[in-house]
Each structure stands twice: as structure tokens, then as C-alpha cells.
């Protein structure tokens, strides 16, 4: 399938397209925005919880700072953790899953057993306990830990995909034509798995956002700097939920996170219809 066809199919699914643009917008805002909009760090006691104005579209926080600038600056770390976790766990999952599916036999059984055990352990509590033992004071460590905990389901689905592609007649034909292992893996099998990998990548990104914000909310990650998760925790512990005037402070980060999660999942759903011809319907 060509890129053009993919774009055409994306255009057909309106919700997916909205998701795609929201996602793109949030990423741009988080990575480019900080260079455009400076972080407001001036404490203004007289303007605490000021209502939104044109100059401060989201109003002021508990110390009279502009909430909008905090939102712009608070995305980068959250998204970096999400993307890093996504990349890492997808890589681990892809290699282990593909390897397991390819090699079969006892090694396969063993890897899948490990995956099974991993899958039955509730991930978030394990993460909490680990966070209490390890000091997760930088986003790379956090991403690494999240990735280590989130690869098993992906590995399993990659494996089943490999198993199903592996037995296709065109793989057998490629073997008969002696096209070589490299060709078979990268030209015959991999392109058929791309859709799967991308969708799973998005899922592990959203899972990483859930986990990291959850950890931050419970105060288990001693991170500093601007961060949507920290904003929520801050607003929550300062009791921002109790006053109408302070609602924007807690609602703003909640809404961007929710928006990110929704957009990612909506986009991945439309990708699913693109990569799964069965859902695409007869063309």
C-alpha cells in the first residue's frame, strides 16, 4: 500500500483525522511552543486564581502565574516519557516477539511463559512498589522502567502476527526463490507488521501517560520542572478543586492529558482500519 492510499484512507475517517491533528497540535505546542511562549514565573499575590482574560486565556494559578504558559511548557516531559516508553517497549516487544515467533520451540515457550507471568501481575501496583524502591528522579529512568513493564502484551501480539505471516505461502515462495533471510524479514514480513507495530506504539504511549501521571499524582516521582502531571498534583494538594475560581488550574492539565489520550486512541483506531483489510471492507 502506498503512502498516498494511506492518506486517502485517513481522510475517509473523520474522527481519526481529528485525532491526528489534535495529536500533531499537542506535539507542536509542547516542543515548539516553549520557544515561542516564555514560561511565566513571576509570583503575583494580587492575581491568584484570576479568571481567564484575553491575555491569560486560562487564567492564573495559585501564585498568580499564567496557567497557559505552564500548559505549553508542561507537555514536553510528559510527551518525551510517552514517546521514549513507546519506542523502547515497542522495540523490546518487537524483537522479543518476532524472535520468539521465528525461532519457535523451547525458547518460544519460555519467552511466552515469561510474558504470561508478566501479564498476570498488575502493572500499576508493581510500578508503585518499584517507584518506592528506586528513585525515579529523571525522565529517562522513568521511561526505561515504564518500557520494561509494558512490553509483554505487545510482544505477544507481535509474535502471533509473525506466526501467522510466517506460514503464508509467499514466505514459502520467497524461501524457494532463495531470497535470503534479510529479504524475508525486512521485505516480506516486516511491511506486513508495520500497522501492528504503529498501533501498539500508540497504545504503549497512552499507557505511559496513564502510569507516569498516576505516579506523579501520588507523589512517587520526585521530578521537577513544568509538567502536566505535577500541575494536577499541585492543584490537587492545594485544594484547587474546592473553589470555582481555581477550577481552571486543575481542569487545564486534566483536559490536555485527556485530549492527548483521546486523540492518540482515535488516531490508532483509524490506523487499525487502514492496516486491517478485513475492517476496510471490500474495496
Amino acid at each position, binding site marked *: 500500500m502506498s503512502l498516498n492510499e494511506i492518506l486517502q484512507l485517513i481522510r475517509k475517517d473523520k*474522527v481519526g483525522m481529528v485525532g491526528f491533528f489534535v495529536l500533531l497540535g499537542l506535539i507542536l505546542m509542547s516542543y515548539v511552543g516553549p520557544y515561542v511562549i516564555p514560561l511565566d514565573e513571576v509570583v503575583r499575590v494580587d492575581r491568584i486564581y484570576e479568571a481567564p482574560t484575553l491575555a491569560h486565556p486560562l487564567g492564573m494559578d495559585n501564585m498568580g502565574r499564567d496557567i497557559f504558559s505552564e500548559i505549553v511548557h508542561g507537555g514536553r516531559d510528559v510527551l518525551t516519557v510517552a514517546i521514549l516508553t513507546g519506542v523502547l517497549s515497542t522495540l523490546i516487544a518487537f524483537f522479543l516477539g518476532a524472535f520468539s515467533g521465528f525461532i519457535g520451540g523451547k525458547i518460544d515457550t519460555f519467552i511466552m511463559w515469561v510474558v*504470561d*507471568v508478566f501479564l*498476570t*501481575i*498488575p*502493572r*500499576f*501496583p*508493581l510500578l*508503585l*512498589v*518499584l*517507584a*518506592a*524502591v*528506586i*528513585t525515579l528522579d529523571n525522565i529517562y529512568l522513568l521511561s526505561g522502567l515504564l518500557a520494561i513493564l509494558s512490553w509483554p502484551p505487545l510482544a505477544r501480539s507481535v509474535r502471533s502476527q509473525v506466526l501467522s505471516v510466517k506460514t503464508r505461502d509467499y514466505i514459502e515462495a520467497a524461501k524457494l526463490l532463495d531470497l535470503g533471510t534479510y529479504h524475508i524479514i525486512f521485505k516480506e514480513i516486516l511491511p506486513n507488521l508495520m500497522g501492528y507495530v504503529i498501533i501498539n506504539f500508540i497504545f504503549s504511549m*497512552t499507557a505511559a*501517560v*496513564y502510569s507516569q*501521571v*498516576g505516579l506523579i*499524582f*501520588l*507523589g*512517587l516521582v520526585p521530578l521537577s520542572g513544568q509538567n502536566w502531571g505535577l500541575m*494536577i498534583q499541585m492543584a*490537587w494538594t492545594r485544594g484547587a*478543586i*474546592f473553589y*470555582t475560581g481555581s*477550577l481552571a488550574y*486543575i*481542569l487545564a492539565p*486534566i483536559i490536555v*492529558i*485527556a485530549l492527548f*489520550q*483521546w486523540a*492518540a*486512541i*482515535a488516531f490508532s*483506531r483509524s490506523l487499525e482500519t487502514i492496516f486491517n483489510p478485513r475492517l476496510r471492507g471490500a474495496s
Partner: protein
Amino acid sequence: MPAFLRRLAKNFLLRRLLAMFATIFLVVTLTFFMVRLMPGNPIEVYINQQMSLTGISYQEAQNQAASLYNIDLTSPIWVQWVDYMKKMAVGDFGYSFSSPGTPVIKMIVDYLPWTIFSVGISIFISFILGIFMGMYIAYKRGGWMDHILSSFASITSSVPNYLVGILLLIFFGVQLRIIPFSVMRGTAPAGVEPGFSLEYLWGIFAHAILPMLTYIISTIGGWILTMKNTTMTTMGEDYVLVAKARGLKESRIIVHYVGRNAILPLFTTLVMQVGLLIGGSPLIETIFVYKGIGYALSNSLAQRDYPVMQAIFLCITISVIFANFAADLLYSKLDPRIKSNVTE
């Protein structure tokens, strides 16, 4: 192998049970090594703390730690492990750091039922409602109900459940003041004698209402969408077409031909739901100050109360494993293909 053993080996239930205990065994072992061997492991941390705080020797601090953890820290690691496993097997989890003298097992007995109660009821309600809604919109796809429910489902199922919880708290509790959430802290009404009185039952239900609502809202979307999906797939199956050709009543086809087959794949999701909900309960229960096992876990985390933390983690894991087992059993009851695959 003797015949009766072979028969046992082929028994689906027994094999699942064995697998379950093997997993539990492994998890217990893992937590042991996590606490014992990880860099900066809690025991070392505790020992160093005690040394710097009270100025006692390493030996003394170690002895204190050993008595708290119920571990003989001087014996070889594998002896410690065997010892630990033995204690775990009889439910001896040691004592809490933060409330000295309280056995961890007692805390668990106090907290766990509330989580099981709230999560269990939520899953049940959400599953039933979600399935009906999903099936309904699969039959009426393209209609206005489909648009509304599908959009609702796609939004609620993607927003993290604790954010849903905070939003609920803000709108129902603070803004609209429908639910007096500050009175609703905890799990049971104060001053009401526990028992099967209407007042008490209503009380515990009212206390759980916000967490349950959170669980339901954040999981029902998933059920709706998956059920819509599987229903639509099943509706296209040949046997449904043949059932129509046989002149069967629509209601019979919907329930026995489409419904039963469309629900089957959802059981794997059910398993994941149970894990996710119980696993996510530390956040939800903290938000609503609902004193279940998750609340206890996040409390123990905040106070770095390692024995409690460790035991609760085990407990959560074991409940999830048991829930998986139950879902599997249910699944094998509903799908005749499972059994024959195993005994093949």
C-alpha cells in the same frame, strides 16, 4: 504415567489451578528478591536510617530490621528465601512500620474486602450495561444512539480513570454538591452498627458510589465498543444467516446466536479489566479517600512502610490471578471448543 495421573493432567481446571499457583509462587519470590537484593533495597535503607538516626551499630540496626521483617538477615540468602516463603504460605506478612504492633495481615483483612466489593460491583454493572448498549448500537448502527454512545465510549475509554475521578469529584461533589463527598470519606457510615441493616447497607453503598461511578464510566466505553465490534462480526457469520433462513425468531437469534458468540471474546478483556481496575485502585481510592486496599497501598508508599507495601502488592496480584482464573472458568463453561481443544 498411571492412567489416573494422565486423566488429571488432561483436566482443564486442574491445569489452570497449577498454573495459577506457579504464578503466585513466582511473584512471591520476585517480591522477596526485590526487597532483599535491589540496589537501595528497603532493608538496607532502613538499617542505614536507624544507624544515622539513633546512632546504633549496624548489627543492632540489622537485628531491628530482621525482627520487623521477620527475616534472619544473617543466614544465607536461599535460607532467607525458604523462610520467607514458609511465612507467606501461612499469611504471616510481618508487622507494619508506621503503626507498630499491627500485623500486616490484619490490615489486609480490613481493607481488601472494600476494594473487592466496589470493584466487583462496578465491573458487573459496567459489563452488563456495556454489553447491552454495544449490542443495541450494533443493531442500530448509523442511528443517533450509535453516534452518541460511540462518541461517549471513545472519549471515556481513553481518559485515564483517575482523571475521570477528579472530574466527578469536582462536578458532583464540589460544583453541584449532589454528593456530600467530605462525609463520604471512608468506606462505611460512622456511628452505624455494621450488619445487615438497611441503613448500614445503604451507607456502605453511598460511600462507594463515587469510586464505583468512576470505575463504571471509565470501563463501560471499552465494553460498548468491543461488544459493538464483536456483535457486528458475529452478525456476518454464516450460522446467523442460516438461523435467519431457518425462520428463527429475531429475539432468539439476537440472544442465542449473535449474543452468546459475540460475548465470548470479551472474556479475555474481562480478565484485563479486573487487573486494571484493582491495579488502578490506589489512585481512585486515594482521590475519594475510600479505604480499600489501594488506599492502604498508596498510604504505605507515602510512609515507605515496606512490609505493608509488599504484602498489599502480593494481595493485589493474587486477587487479580484469582479473578483471571474465575474468568477463564466461566469462559470454558460458555465455549465448548475450549475443553475439547485441551483434551484433544
